[in-house]
């Protein structure tokens, strides 16, 4: 007992690409739609139909490869992976085994011990399968081919991660790069990013890799963390009790917090991979590759450096804003319209992030335009509306992308800038709150807050609270 174990983890990450049409036909990739409405003879495997590669898929795959420092194959092929299952209309999946599009890359992650390089073994293109719906009531199964032929890339890492934290850091880095490229929205819950965890343990200090298992069905970072902890523990217990880890595919059940074996290596299928004769080899030309390279966006690190130079905002703000390309774009565009980077950053970091969190949304879901945010900031600046009203307007804008100028006008929420009206109300408040007035005069500074509140209430929130405070002090 008392042996120290090291966890060795490699990931296979499937990412659904954000193309408008499927990988080998012209059907839309749009989510939803009644079953089998986003289909055609090609993606339902009708006889005599042929696949034609969507060039955008190649473009995205290469862009991700470049962003992860991969070698881009100048010559690659598609292979058929043969297996019978009804979600797969041809009974073979078109994928890449022998000559994938990208190889030998790496990305850098931040760990507790500093920066660490995680190797990317390869990236290949493939098609997704349809969806089976088991109707237990009718005792039958139905199949929906809307997803059949949705383009995917599979990113296979090296066995380079040693903890759940490293895995999460790797996935977050990958997600950020791909989102910056616009190649996918990478949502784990919705399945546009899926990670299978290959995990083995070995005695600390040894070199040889232990027998690994592959864990599937991990739909959130939390599930991944729990599955890694659970599988590490399971394997160590097995070894400690004199058993052996069996190479197998396991399915994680996040509700139970356990995994169970799906199939072992012994009954692994023979996929009879061979080059798909219906697709010609993909030749990547230098000129085309240069164009893709030139079109690579500014990634987070470069963006952060630039922000530090261009905008007078704290590094903390920069880190949060650049964590999402959508957020960074909004920030830059809004600042371009109304200046005031710190104010823009505050709205995004405080209010926008709060609402996103409350609604369970991601920055990619933000609907309001930079134009409207800029207008809102200008309304507050010119004191057309006061702070609390601005927050209310922001909430409405967040949900419906309204034009703040028109909205404030319609609602009649402009700050009342009428000295006489304000003086009248302040006098009323002083007259009817003798207790607080007395407290204030006796040195209780806090009492002024209550009196401002009462004034705002009587002004229906449309007064400038600063001005009300000054007037109260003046009259007391």
């Amino acid at each position, binding site marked *: 007992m008392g042996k120290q174990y090291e966890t060795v983890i490699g990931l296979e990450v499937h990412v659904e690409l954000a193309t408008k049409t499927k990988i080998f036909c012209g059907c839309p990739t749009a989510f939803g739609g009644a079953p089998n409405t986003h289909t055609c*003879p090609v993606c*339902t*495997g*009708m*006889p*005599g*139909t*042929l*696949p*034609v*590669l969507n060039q955008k898929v190649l473009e995205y795959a290469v862009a991700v490869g470049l962003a992860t420092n991969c070698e881009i194959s100048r010559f690659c092929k598609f292979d*058929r992976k*043969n297996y*019978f299952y*009804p979600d797969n*209309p*041809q*009974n*073979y999946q078109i994928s890449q085994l022998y000559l994938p599009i990208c190889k030998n890359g790496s990305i850098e992650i931040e760990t507790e011990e500093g920066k660490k390089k995680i190797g990317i073994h390869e990236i290949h293109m493939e098609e997704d399968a349809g969806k089976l719906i088991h109707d237990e009531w009718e005792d039958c*199964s139905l*199949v929906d081919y809307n997803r059949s032929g949705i383009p995917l890339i599979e990113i296979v890492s090296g066995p380079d991660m040693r903890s759940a934290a490293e895995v999460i850091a790797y996935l977050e880095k990958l997600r950020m790069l791909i989102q910056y490229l616009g190649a996918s929205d990478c949502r784990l819950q919705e399945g546009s990013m899926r990670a299978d965890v290959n995990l083995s343990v070995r005695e600390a200090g040894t070199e040889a890799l232990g027998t690994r298992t592959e864990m599937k069905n991990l739909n959130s970072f939390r599930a991944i963390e729990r599955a890694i902890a659970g599988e590490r523990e399971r394997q160590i217990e097995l070894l400690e009790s004199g058993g052996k880890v069996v190479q197998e595919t396991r399915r994680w059940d996040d509700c139970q917090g356990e995994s169970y074996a799906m199939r072992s290596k012994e009954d692994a299928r*023979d996929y*009879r*991979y*061979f080059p798909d*004769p*219906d*697709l*010609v080899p993909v030749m990547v030309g230098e000129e085309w590759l240069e164009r893709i390279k030139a079109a690579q966006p500014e990634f987070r690190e470069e963006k952060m450096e630039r922000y530090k130079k261009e905008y007078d905002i704290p590094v903390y703000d920069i880190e949060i804003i650049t964590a999402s390309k959508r957020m960074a774009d909004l920030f830059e565009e809004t600042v371009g319209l109304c200046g005031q980077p710190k104010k823009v950053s505050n709205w995004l970091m405080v209010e926008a992030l709060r609402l996103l969190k409350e609604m369970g949304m991601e920055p990619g879901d933000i609907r309001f335009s930079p134009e409207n945010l800029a207008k809102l900031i200008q309304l507050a600046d010119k004191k057309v509306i006061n702070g609390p009203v601005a927050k209310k307007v922001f909430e409405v804008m967040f949900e419906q992308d309204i034009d703040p100028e028109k909205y404030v006008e319609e609602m009649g929420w402009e700050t009342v800038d009428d000295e006489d009206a304000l003086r009248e109300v302040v006098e009323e408040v002083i007259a009817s709150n003798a207790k607080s007035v007395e407290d204030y005069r006796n040195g209780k500074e806090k009492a002024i807050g209550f009196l401002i509140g009462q004034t705002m209430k009587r002004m229906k929130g449309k007064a400038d609270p600063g001005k009300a405070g000054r007037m109260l002090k003046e009259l007391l």
Partner: protein
Amino acid sequence: MKMDVLDLPAVELAEKIRAGEVTAMEALQAVLDSIDEKEEIYHCYITVDRDGAMRKAEAVQKKIESGQLCGRLAGVPAAVKDNICTRGILTTCASRMLGNFIPPYSAEAVLRMEKAGMVIIGKTNMDEFAMGSTTETSAYGETKNPWDIGRVPGGSSGGSAAAVAAKECFAALGSDTGGSIRQPAAFCGVVGIKPTYGTVSRHGLVAYGSSLDQIGPIGKDVTDCAALLEVIASYDKKDSTSIKRDDTDFMDALSEDVKGMKIGIPIDYFGDGLDDGVKDAVLKAAEALKEKGAIVEGFYLSLVEYAIPAYYTIASAEASSNLERFDGIKYGYRTPECGGLHDMYKKTRSEGFGPEVKRRIMLGSFVLSSGYYDAYYLKALKVKALIKKAFDDAFARYDVILGPTAPAAAPVLGASLSDPVRMYLGDIYTVAVNLAGLPAISLPCGRDVEGMPVGLQMIGDCFQEKKIIRAAYAYEKARGPFAAPGLLTSAADGKN
């Protein structure tokens, strides 16, 4: 008058239609009558679309009269092999598996024919999924050779070749994966062209061996085949293996001038196993071309004996995967009773496919399985590359390679099924052409001792269809008209 029409080659028929001497409807009616008289004997068709064809003939006739259609084959009734999809018309691949399959789309080649004003009569019989060399593996019964109903028409495009020979159509589409156009054309005394891979779109052709499959024309003479190939050749975005060509005006190659044309005869094609009658007829044809000014010489092509094993390995491997989609889930045959998914797959495929198809699926699955992939499939690909190289070397010296299409004339019915390996060996002269992606033509060059037609094959380098068409046309003119078979009709001699 009616018999005159049926005797016409397609291009001449179209001329008469354009000239107003015959209408498209009359031509079609002649063919339908011919089918009525002879189908019971020859069984060339799986489906005849009488009403649809007549409607199309009427529409085409109007367009010809109004000058909207003036193509070289406008108004000509033609047949299509049953592995080529036709929208709204049953497309069975001669298999029980697709016994109820009506495609919602037409193959690109069919669309091109329709655009050219050709009238699709129906779908011709074939070996199941194009696997076979005799048309006997069809789930819908065998086709008889119009020259001798005791013999096979060849295969797999046996229905198309026999329909042309029996005057049940003016021209037809076939498909050729290892000789399936050329060999039945040879056995039935008609002409067939297997184009350069990529020349005719494979969209809508139910795949057998995808890297080898090509659709091509079968016709009464070289002119008709050149005309039909010109109609169906096209670059098609729907087929990634389709090739852009600007030299598909094949009728321009119809010239008798072969002076100085270099013709090579592979000496290794004339060894054991070649029937004497075939050998004599082919060498005589070479002599005729020499007399017209061609330079004819023998050479060693090499690797001839490796073509068949390489072909059956590659074609079966691709077929085993291509035919996986026939599982009873989406279309086609599904077993009526089963217990669960696995059982459904097993029974559907066991009941839906015939023995030759199963044999090739098993062979193909085996050569692709882990542990055997390198030894069989990869090795076959290497052989394929070497064969291509051997042809490249030959075409550095010759314009055309001339030889027999098949080692013997059509065998008697039933002789091949019991010995599939012997049947496979009959493909010795045709499969290498598919492995190398080359164009080749087969045309009749005489008859053997039993009076059966013998086929002459001429092979060209990639994209050199025009050379083989020119050589074939020149030979055809030198040869003179080829006798037609004495056809039977069910009314008179059906019981013969």
